[in-house]
């Protein structure tokens, strides 16, 4: 039988944690020095803002996990180990740009300006929760901050972000739209369709792929046989880049370039941010059931917070005293938010029937009346989650 020429791309071997293929953009070296060829040169002030936001995210994460274990909130889905790729990417967007979140980017929401109190209210689903207690914790919404609404079904935000950006382009509004999702989401229908439409219609979208190597218990090797996830851009004629997602400056650099290209009308970019989920998938998950502790330990040594702090220290822009002061400040702020959230009542009963439609139709008026007239259920508990 004749041998025909074919495209055949064997999967690359996975580099060790902290090691990267040549096409992966990095900035911060082991000594805390920036690679001048890739350094986005943000200036000390901005780098410090990035670092402090990462630390704040970490502290909030850890505290929420504790609250969940104490039964004070029902659920949390955190970003332990992914702070650099979340903050580095969101920081690269301009105020006029829009963000479509997955569920792991509360750090990005806070960066865009959501007050911590409102986020904590969301964790409690109380009367001040922006989503009015209708969704699980971490399913926030942030329209005032040009930030989308979280839903659980994997991938659905991707086509929506593409439509949003495409609409902006039709209106000649020179913005970029960033959309977050995980490695698991690359298998979803909406990844395929969103990438394809973005390629065909040149939508100004930056696809922010957090490759944290796991989709709950499924490793990325079981998710796709492609050589890299960035390679998937080829299927759609969409430019693709890879960066060290544990390096906030590298992430910023590649995303910033993609944002500017998109806003200039030069089309979409897929950014594969290589990182690792250090914690469980969510508070409902125990990752020891499916992955080796060794692997986690090796990745723990690439902690993005340590890396960024080393960078600031090399610049002489951060000290142990700064660290202590900042941590204390965040902890105090958070404590106050939690106290307030716990004192805030649940949403009013009748709010359950609002916002299904712009106006309540007759059947919801009837149902609301019957509900309010009828007896109340027993107290509201806190249960499990996904």
């Amino acid at each position, binding site marked *: 039988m004749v041998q025909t020429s074919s495209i055949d791309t064997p999967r690359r071997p996975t580099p060790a944690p902290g090691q990267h293929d040549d096409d992966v953009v990095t900035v911060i070296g082991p000594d805390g020095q920036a690679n001048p060829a890739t350094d986005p040169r943000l200036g000390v002030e901005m780098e410090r803002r990035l670092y402090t936001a990462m630390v704040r995210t970490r502290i909030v994460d850890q505290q929420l996990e504790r609250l969940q274990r104490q039964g004070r909130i029902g659920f949390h889905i955190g970003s332990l180990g992914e702070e650099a790729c979340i903050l580095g990417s969101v920081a690269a967007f301009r105020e006029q740009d829009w963000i479509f979140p997955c569920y792991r980017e509360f750090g990005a929401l806070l960066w865009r300006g959501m007050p911590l109190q409102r986020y904590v209210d969301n964790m409690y689903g109380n009367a001040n*929760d*922006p*989503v*009015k207690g*209708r*969704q699980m914790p971490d*399913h926030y*919404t942030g*329209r005032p901050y040009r930030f*989308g*609404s979280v*839903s659980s*079904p994997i991938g*659905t935000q*991707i*086509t*929506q*972000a*593409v*439509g*949003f*950006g*495409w*609409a*902006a382009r*039709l*209106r000649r509004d020179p913005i970029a739209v960033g959309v977050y999702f995980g490695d698991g989401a690359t298998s979803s*229908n*909406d990844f*395929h*369709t*969103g990438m*394809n*439409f973005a390629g*065909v*219609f040149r939508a100004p979208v930056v696809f922010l792929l957090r490759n944290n190597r796991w989709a709950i218990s499924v490793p990325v090797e079981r998710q796709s046989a492609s050589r890299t996830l960035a390679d998937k851009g080829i299927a759609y004629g969409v430019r693709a880049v890879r960066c060290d997602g544990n390096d906030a400056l590298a992430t910023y650099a590649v995303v910033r370039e993609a944002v500017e290209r998109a806003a200039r009308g030069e089309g979409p970019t897929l950014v594969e941010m290589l990182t690792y989920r250090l914690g469980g998938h969510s508070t409902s998950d125990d990752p020891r059931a499916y992955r080796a502790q060794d692997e986690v330990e090796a990745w723990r040594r690439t902690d993005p917070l340590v890396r960024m702090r080393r960078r600031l220290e090399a610049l002489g822009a951060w000290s142990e005293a700064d660290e202590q002061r900042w941590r204390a400040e965040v902890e105090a702020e958070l404590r106050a938010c939690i106290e307030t959230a716990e004192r805030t009542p649940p949403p009013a009963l009748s709010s359950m029937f*609002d*916002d*299904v*439609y*712009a106006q309540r*139709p*007759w*059947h919801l008026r009837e149902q609301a009346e019957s509900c309010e007239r009828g007896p109340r259920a027993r107290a509201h508990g806190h249960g499990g989650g996904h």
Partner: protein
Amino acid sequence: MSEMNLVQAINAALRQEMRRNPDVVVLGEDVGKVGGVFRVTQGLWEEFGDERVIDTPLAEGGIIGTAIGMALYGLRPVPEIQFADFIYPAFDQIVSEAAKYRYRSGGEYPCPITIRTPVGGGIRGGHYHSQSPEALFIHTPGLKVVCPSNPYDAKGLLVSSIRDDDPVLFFEPKRVYRAVKMEVPDEEYTIPLGVAKIVRPGDHVTVIAWGAMLYEALASADEVAAEGISCEVIDLRTLWPVDIDTLVQSVQKTGRFVVVHEAPKSCGYGAELVSLLTEKCFLRLEAPPVRVTGWDTPFPYTLENEYLPLQHRIVPALRETARY
């Protein structure tokens, strides 16, 4: 006034709204140059160009997903699904996303899209070009569902749907597309969502129908009129939220009712109408409510006319109900 069929009336509504509001865009498979496989969007691409009349790749989930994104941005997209039978790749975007967007975002993100799609049998389309999936969307809180039976209503209802701030499924009965012609005003007008129409007043039996089956209901009412059975035929026009007052009033008068629809019987919309009216008119009911519907099988090809709830099946139901 111009004489128009359903296709022309829908086309006129789209054209009018697109002229009136630059935020209205049409997208779907083959909606552009060729004007849709049923030619409903014909001429729009020539007038409004590639940016507002958009031929998309073959992906219904992409059509609806991107339309949702456009609506969040502030546009008024009118996506087309080529046949209602092909809406399922977009089902997740419709029921998990569009339907819940306003609610789940605490009111921050309304999602005003109008999904147009041809529905129903009668064109020898077999399994996959004939189905009527309205019940699936009525069961999903947050959606509105419309199905006009004639050109005049179609224009007025489509305009209302596009201007409505909630997601609307706009089902177009393809059997009616070119079969019915009538005078339609050239000017703007709207028909409010949620208002049914008594198309034939009567005293003995209420007949509830919509879309293509309305004509079968009317023909059946004519047939039994000769036997002294007087039917009140109601065209729902908006399937959900339904015009409960008109229905209850009619059934309070007649004490008997029959629902006609093409979809399979079990868990079809007929079941909801029977339940609602039994709940609200229990003491007035003089005969068991009857559903004349498609059978609980996939939609067949050769035996299509035996599958559909046509006159030959409605008439006996009217007789039985009237004489019960």
